[in-house]
């Protein structure tokens, strides 16, 4: 059993690509070994700024011998058939093949192909160059006069199996047992014999191999430095990962900037020094206020203890923060409403008009939605009017991530109502699955308006997500609507009708009635009349068709959402019927149904109803005709039939009331009254009576049950 140590050493790998590359290297080499019949115990990978490393333990020295039997033609077959067989299996004459006797088939040839095992080092010498050549970097390059592609120029390959060099060559790069240490803190090549030796020697040469360890060192160093200054680190996982990918030997240092910059909102400072400088911010642990200090992670134990490095970083941070402060001061001089004209020159989407036009729509929508969420309509409209104005501020131009947030600060600065300011920030929320959902009424109104307008618009121009492609983040928008409505328990929107109306309204024509953008109600007719091929305006159909397609999209997203929250998928499917377009009601029904079928009455009713449905389906399948209508009480023969009929009559009004008042539990309770009559019916009555009229009448009675339950949920979808 041997250990494989592989290191691919190259110029600086982008931090964001390192982790994935380590995993891919392990996967590709591991799969290749297994394919060659070489099983191993463990594999680990390490990735950093200049090297990818793989160590595999427990590799055999050779792959096992394999003997393969190949059946051939019958003895006495035409020569051609036999020759073909011999050629295929690599035998010289038929004498070398075995003859097997079979009672039925007679005698036939069998070739036994012995594949001797291969030396592991031979397998590796072929496998690793192939892996390097086909490595799935997101972006790769050539260099010098060579043809090889790698993420950046590849310099050397270290490859040892059981301490011995596995010899191969990739475009002139020969494998060996040497590597280099830290770019500045170590000189000369390092010769290694195995992984433990490699890891230790690299550490001596100021390279921490393991990214997790580098992260840990940075975090510990940063926390310790913060503590010493009586401050607290503003933690940032993504930044930590990135920083660990930029250094081989992390050295944590602390710098400072002028206090005057703290007038700028803290998020701006944090973003500025993170985005441009990859530095961490610090805050006062007690007050939570940002401090005028920052943590930088260098790659060097400097001769001067880091003085020059700190001074250099401080100067750059100062320049960045002066820019930010300048933007802040300049931006505050212009009122948000005065920026609105500038939105006219920003195209939201070629087929959906400008941001200014979009803002006009949002104002109308937010005002319309306000009453349903108990928001002040004036405030909702005002927030909608201002919500995109920060897109044309200098600060958001520099830091697009701060959109919304800056709008809030500028709104507060110019004395807008607090809920209006909050809505300017909150209308983008929730930005993802983990983001919070707005709960202030004004924010809810504008957030819904923003997302619904986006969805309506892109559906109207037929730009829907396909597969993994969702360039306008429409899935996120739909999930946002779902989360806002469900997590705030409202508002109720009947999506089909609501969306239909919005789609019909969406669009703009010029003075002569020529379509400019949005949904064009005339395009279908006029283009067909003219005999034109597909016009640039994508025609997808009437508002009704578009809306129902969008409702189906919402249903899909809602199903995913509910399942993620732990709802049973069959219950979700049972409730989400084709025309279910009230998101809140769907969720309530799923919950109610869950409780109901867990109860004794519910569980038993389910059994009965499912039996009714399966009888009906079988009959319908046989006759090819649907069973419709209600039973005729005159034809009933048994008390059990009458009991079901009576129970149906008693409960149906209650079901309807329950449904109409959305008291779904009441509707289910009413349904439960059917349970014992149905049980008795199936115990004592034969549906399949010889008398045709009697049989048909009984099927109709069952159909009534099916219809009644279908009004609440499709019981046939519920699994036992």
């Amino acid at each position: 059993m041997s250990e494989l140590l592989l290191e691919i050493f190259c110029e600086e790998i982008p931090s964001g690509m390192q982790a994935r590359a380590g995993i891919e290297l392990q996967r590709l080499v591991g799969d290749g070994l297994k394919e060659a019949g070489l099983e191993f115990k463990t594999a680990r990978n390490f990735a950093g700024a200049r090297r990818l490393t793989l160590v595999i333990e427990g590799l055999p020295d050779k792959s096992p011998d394999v003997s393969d039997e190949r059946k051939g033609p019958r003895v006495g077959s035409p020569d051609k058939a036999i020759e073909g067989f011999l050629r295929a299996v690599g035998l010289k004459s038929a004498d070398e093949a075995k003859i097997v006797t079979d009672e039925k088939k007679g005698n036939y040839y069998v070739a036994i192909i012995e594949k001797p095992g291969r030396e592991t080092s031979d397998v590796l010498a072929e496998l690793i160059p192939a892996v390097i050549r086909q490595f799935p970097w997101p972006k790769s390059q050539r260099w010098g006069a060579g043809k090889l592609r790698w993420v950046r120029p590849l310099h050397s390959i270290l490859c040892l199996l059981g301490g011995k060099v596995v010899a191969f060559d990739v475009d002139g790069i020969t494998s060996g047992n040497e590597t280099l240490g830290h770019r500045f803190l170590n000189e000369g090549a390092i010769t290694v014999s195995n992984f433990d030796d490699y890891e230790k020697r690299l550490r001596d040469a100021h390279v921490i191999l393991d990214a997790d360890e580098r992260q840990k060192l940075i975090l510990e160093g940063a926390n310790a430095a913060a503590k010493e200054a009586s401050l607290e680190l503003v933690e940032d996982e993504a930044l930590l990962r990135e920083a660990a990918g930029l250094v081989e030997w992390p050295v944590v240092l602390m710098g400072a900037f002028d206090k005057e910059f703290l007038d700028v909102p803290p998020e701006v400072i944090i973003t500025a020094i993170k985005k441009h400088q990859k530095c961490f911010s610090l805050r006062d642990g007690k007050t939570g206020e940002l401090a005028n200090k920052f943590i930088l992670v260098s790659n060097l134990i400097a001769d001067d203890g880091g003085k020059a490095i700190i001074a250099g970083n401080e100067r750059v941070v100062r320049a960045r923060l002066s820019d930010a402060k300048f933007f802040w001061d300049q931006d505050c001089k212009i009122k948000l409403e005065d920026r609105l004209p500038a939105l006219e020159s920003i195209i939201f989407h070629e087929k959906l008009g400008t941001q200014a036009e979009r803002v006009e729509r949002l104002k109308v929508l937010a005002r319309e939605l306000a009453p349903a969420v108990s928001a002040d309509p004036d405030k909702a409209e005002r927030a909608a009017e201002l919500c995109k104005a920060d897109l044309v501020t200098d600060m958001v131009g520099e830091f697009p991530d701060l959109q919304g947030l800056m709008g809030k600060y500028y709104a507060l600065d110019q004395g807008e109502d607090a809920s209006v300011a909050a809505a300017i920030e909150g209308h983008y929320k929730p930005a993802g699955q983990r983001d919070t959902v707005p709960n202030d009424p004004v924010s809810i109104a504008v957030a819904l308006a923003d997302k619904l307008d986006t969805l309506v618009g892109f559906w109207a121009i037929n730009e829907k997500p396909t597969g993994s492609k969702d360039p306008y983040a429409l899935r996120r928008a739909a999930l946002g609507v779902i989360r806002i409505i469900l997590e705030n328990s409202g508002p109720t929107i009947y999506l089909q009708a609501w969306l239909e109306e919005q789609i019909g309204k969406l669009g703009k024509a010029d003075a002569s009635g020529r379509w400019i953008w949005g949904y064009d109600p005339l395009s279908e007719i006029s283009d067909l009349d003219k005999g034109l091929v597909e016009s640039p305006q994508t025609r997808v159909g009437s508002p009704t068709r578009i809306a129902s397609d969008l409702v189906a999209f919402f249903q899909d997203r809602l199903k995913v959402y509910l399942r993620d929250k732990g709802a049973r998928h069959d219950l979700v499917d049972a409730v989400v019927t084709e025309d279910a377009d009230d998101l809140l009601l769907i969720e309530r029904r799923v919950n109610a149904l869950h409780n109901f079928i867990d109860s004794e009455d519910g569980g038993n009713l389910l059994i009965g109803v499912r039996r009714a449905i399966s009888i009906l389906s079988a009959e319908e399948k046989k006759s090819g005709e649907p069973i419709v209508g209600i039973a005729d009480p005159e034809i009933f023969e048994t008390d059990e039939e009458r009991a079901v009929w009576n129970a149906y009559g008693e409960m149906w009004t209650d079901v309807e009331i329950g449904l109409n008042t959305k008291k779904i539990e009441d509707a289910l309770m009413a349904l439960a009254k059917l349970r014992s009559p149905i049980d008795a019916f199936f115990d004592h009555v034969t549906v399949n009576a010889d008398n045709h009229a009697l049989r048909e009448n009984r099927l109709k009675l069952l159909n009534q049950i099916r219809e009644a339950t279908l009004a609440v949920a499709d019981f046939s979808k519920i699994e036992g």
Partner: protein
Amino acid sequence: MANAQAAQLRPDKSFQDLILVLQLYWAARGCVLLQPYDMEVGAGTFHPATTLRALGPKPWNVAYVQPSRRPTDGRYGENPNRLQHYYQYQVILKPSPSDIQELYLKSLYAIGINPKNHDIRFVEDDWESPTLGAWGLGWEVWCDGMEVSQFTYFQQVGGFDCDPVAGELTYGLERLAMYCQGVDNVYDLNFNGGEGDKKVTYGDVFLQAEQEYSRHNFEYANTERLLTHFRDAEAECKALLEAGDRGEGKMHECVLPAYDQCIKASHIFNLLDARGVISVTERQAYILRVRDLTKACCTAWLQTEAGGAS
């Protein structure tokens, strides 16, 4: 530094000495030292010694200072870091040698940046020039958190693969000088290394120009005439390419003059952009028009001797 004069040079005290040290350094590594191209360009990359020479099979090592104009970066001389006219130091090594990173680091050492005291980092930064139809992979080089150079391995220019690959090093000279001199405002840079009344600052040389050109770029430049110039340059470029074309398999006879017109069109586009008369949608269209010119020039270049045709 092997060179005797180098000992006298003070890149930490003088902007021009910084340039001289780089000149000596790269000359000693076999580079042709060219002088700046005599046209307005947005970056050293536009110099035909980069754009065109990066194409074709012939080795090419060159270094030069290139004044670069970015009309939209004008700040009327009021911003300590931003200029509409500044200097780049450009090095092209083709094919890129395997020790190109070390060569670069030693050049930093030559201008007084000792990697034992300064944190030098190669941070991912892929380069793309839509107007040149060019892209490459590389880094921005950080010194103590400040970007001091762009480092790019050219992969394509004018839509053609670069084979062999040229390595491009671009030093932002003002920023580097500010770092070496420990100055926060570009206009305070000591230009000539003089002391007292012998001292000439960057502001003495360029402040007035920044103010005047900012007015020109943002306010005075006549957009109608610029639009005409753009169309003229575009037409002339195409006409020259056609005039020099001797047919398939024959050497092209007029690439460099045509490429000049392409450079001109690019700069006029930048001016129009600064004047704010180009809308978002038009912008893309203009970029594509310039790119078409570049591509046509690069295609023709490959049919010349310097482009490797035979």
